[in-house]
């Protein structure tokens, strides 16, 4: 098992590469979903404030 994680001596390069890819891709997801939720909430609030206008 430990020889697997050693990656034939390239552990210091292989694992950081995968970790940084996973971190950036996960971060993009979290940021995108958070923004969408925030915008949905903002729009709901704005629409509640002006009941005359209905959503198209």
């Amino acid at each position, binding site marked *: 098992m430990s020889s697997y994680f050693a*990656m*034939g*001596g*390239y552990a210091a*390069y*292989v694992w*950081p*590469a*995968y970790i*940084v*890819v996973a971190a*950036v*891709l996960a971060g*993009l*997801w979290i940021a*995108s*979903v958070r*923004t*969408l939720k925030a*915008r*949905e909430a*903002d*729009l709901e609030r*704005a*629409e509640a*404030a*002006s009941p005359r*206008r209905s959503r*198209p």
Partner: protein
Amino acid sequence: MQRFANPGQFQRLARAVFPWTATLSMLCFASGLWFALIASPPDYQMGESVRIMYVHVPSAWMALFSYVNVAIAGAVLLVWKHPLAELAGRAMAPVGACFTALCLITGSLWGQPMWGTWWVWDARLTSVLILFFLYLGYMALANAFDDPTRGGRAAAILALVGVVNVPIIKFSVDWWNTLHQPASLTRLDAPAIHSSMLIPLLLLAVGFTLYFITLTLIRMRSEILARRLRALQFAQSAVDGEPRQVSA
């Protein structure tokens, strides 16, 4: 096609497609990682460091793929003035910038043990770095104006001008004597890569593409809502009799 060009229709389409692309990309990631990290052999020259290629190459492809899409969105915006095209460009550019950064970082992590250096100013690496700056320029320009439509148009022009960099990146390894190796897959003859290494590469490439589509759908929905919110606030301030903000 015209039907989906309407923001309301697009919202419905995006919601319907989203679970499929999200699930499929996760399946590709899971199976791709299995092959990339466990079920594929070490390279006879690169050893285990070849595994970096399975995330580096898809990142590089996505960096170019995203840029071409941002540029197409820019062309559609400038020619047909379609509002969804502007939102698409805004939604895709940061994702493309992240893929470009990942390509550069994973490339460095491979270059250090294989070439003995984190970075060289050769044609391939430099042109990809320029691609990264093009993305940053696009994002800065798109948000540099009070009126988002003006920013969107300025950024679209930049994106179109920057397209010349795409073939430069692609052919840099053939045109110049670079340290970076030439393509092993997109050649006219058969790919110079064994199926045991081709499978993880293609699975992760498809996974990256589906993930890009999923993120773009989420981000375009945010952009549509932001635009709707802006219109609502504009109308409200007009109704309330406040001095209407005039954007330049």
